């Protein structure tokens, strides 16, 4: 017996993926959202304001934002040239450089922190300079830069490679020099990648824990960023679990706010689609 062939049905614009796949997809969404909901459910609203405005919380927040911004700035200064270099290298060189850049991404952050300690520590390779880096705020920034750089470089490099050489050639033919091409053509064309890379980079830097803990320590006001403060609070040393939850909520709200901000601002795409193309 042959069953009649039912042609696959698809609503216009939705494609032909089997509908039953919606079940694991929704499970995935639930898995990502439910833990955060559980966190919000444990917030002690009566003491929330007090927990957030405590000296330890505020100084951790300030330190996190400042070091996160500093690390992001460093990542931009060295990451943009690195992304350009990779995007314009021969395929083999590019693959090698990309692998090097990806290492901090797959490396446990603890190992990163330990490695930084062996480079910058008193008995490390750079110990002879007498430059006291470990367990200072500078160490926090370095640890964050180490783990966050791949996010910026890989996002930007992909965007530059995708936009290709044709527009740069056109600009060169019109008489633009290499700096003009970089500022007015290459980077604006890669702006979406640059933007999302920068946001991911900042988010990763602000959330950095493992490398910071090993390389910079946990000194309140100097190296105790939000994640370290949350860990300390959760372990009950000094402050309560309530403040750990309050601090986590703050980090959560901050990251969602950053995401919404980025969604609302899309350079170049702003006025593109509305009436004409619909």
């Amino acid at each position: 017996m042959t069953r009649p062939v039912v042609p696959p049905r698809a609503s216009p614009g939705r494609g032909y993926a089997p509908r039953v796949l919606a079940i694991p997809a929704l499970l995935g969404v639930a898995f990502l959202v439910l833990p955060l909901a559980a966190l919000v459910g444990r917030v002690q609203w009566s003491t929330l304001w007090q927990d957030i405005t405590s000296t330890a919380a505020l100084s951790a927040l300030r330190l996190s934002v400042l070091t996160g911004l500093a690390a992001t700035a460093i990542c931009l200064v060295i990451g943009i040239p690195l992304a350009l270099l990779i995007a314009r290298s021969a395929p083999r060189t590019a693959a090698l450089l990309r692998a090097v850049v990806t290492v901090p991404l797959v490396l446990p952050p603890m190992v990163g922190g330990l490695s930084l300690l062996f480079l910058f520590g008193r008995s490390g390779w750079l110990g002879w300079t007498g430059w006291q880096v470990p367990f200072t705020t500078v160490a926090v920034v370095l640890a964050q830069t180490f783990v966050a750089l791949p996010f910026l470089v890989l996002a930007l490099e992909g965007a530059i490679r995708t936009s290709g050489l044709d527009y740069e050639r056109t600009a060169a033919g019109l008489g633009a020099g290499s700096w003009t091409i970089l500022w007015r053509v290459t980077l604006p064309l890669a702006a979406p990648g640059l933007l999302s890379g920068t946001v991911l980079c900042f988010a990763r830097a602000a959330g950095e824990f493992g490398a910071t803990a090993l390389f910079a320590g946990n000194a309140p006001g100097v190296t105790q960023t939000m994640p370290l403060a949350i860990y300390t609070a959760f372990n009950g040393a000094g402050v309560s679990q309530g403040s750990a939850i309050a601090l986590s909520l703050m980090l959560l709200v901050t990251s969602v706010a950053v995401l919404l901000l980025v969604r609302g601002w899309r350079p170049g795409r702003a006025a593109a689609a509305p009436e004409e193309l619909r």
Partner: protein
Amino acid sequence: MTGALLDAEIRVDRGAFTLDAALHAEPGEILALMGPSGAGKSTLLGVVAGFVPLRAGAVRLDGETVQDAAGIDVRPRERGVILLGQQPRLFPHLTARENIAFGPRAHRVPKTRARADADAWLARIGLADLGDRRPARLSGGQQQRVALARALATSPRVLLLDEPLASLDPATADGIRTLLRDELAGTTVVMATHDAADAIALADRLLVLESGRITADGPPATVLSAPGTAFTAALARTVPGADPAWQARAESIEETADGIRVHVRTADSRFHDLRLPAGSPVVPGSLISIHPPTL
């Protein structure tokens, strides 16, 4: 706007393919370059633009060598040669006005003057109202007009056009053809095209490039009326004919071992098969002038 004297001997090797051609254009002269696909037209233009290295020979503008095989390679910025291809390649993040002003701005023309000049160009190309639009909100023909204005706004010493009308529908292409006829005067131009009508309408001279060599060179009408190669002969038949009684429309095309077989229908609804060399510029729907010996 003054074009340069272009003088080039070009030899490029790409695997088994060798391009070996000399190119000479007086200041302000318009050359049409025709040839089957793969003959080396785009490579030739790429050499003059500076994107393809030479194996031997040199490219000279007004007697000054801008590129040779020994390593002289004047950067595009100083060379003043602009290549405009099938794709307009307008910068998607800039408005039409900013696109046209890009070249002058790169040459340090003050912002207000560059923008005023760009507005004048927008008026000349018939898009005075669309200066604030980004390319995504312009039609293909409008984009190609802006790209042409952007190229001409820098007063190029040589303008290279690589099939600029090929991706446009016939009516739009006609509009741009008229624009080219009006605006190219005084500019030295080399234009690769598949359409013999372009050569007749726009060019002072027609060069035919086959398998990397120039096989014909002269005024378009002369080259097409006295074809020296099978390709040129096939080309001549695609010119809107002087003898309408013998015009036929190509209905279908098949590839054969030694070329193509075109099934045509004449005005009196009779069918014939024509054998033409591979790469003949015929597509289904083309009007072909056929002569008795072909039948």
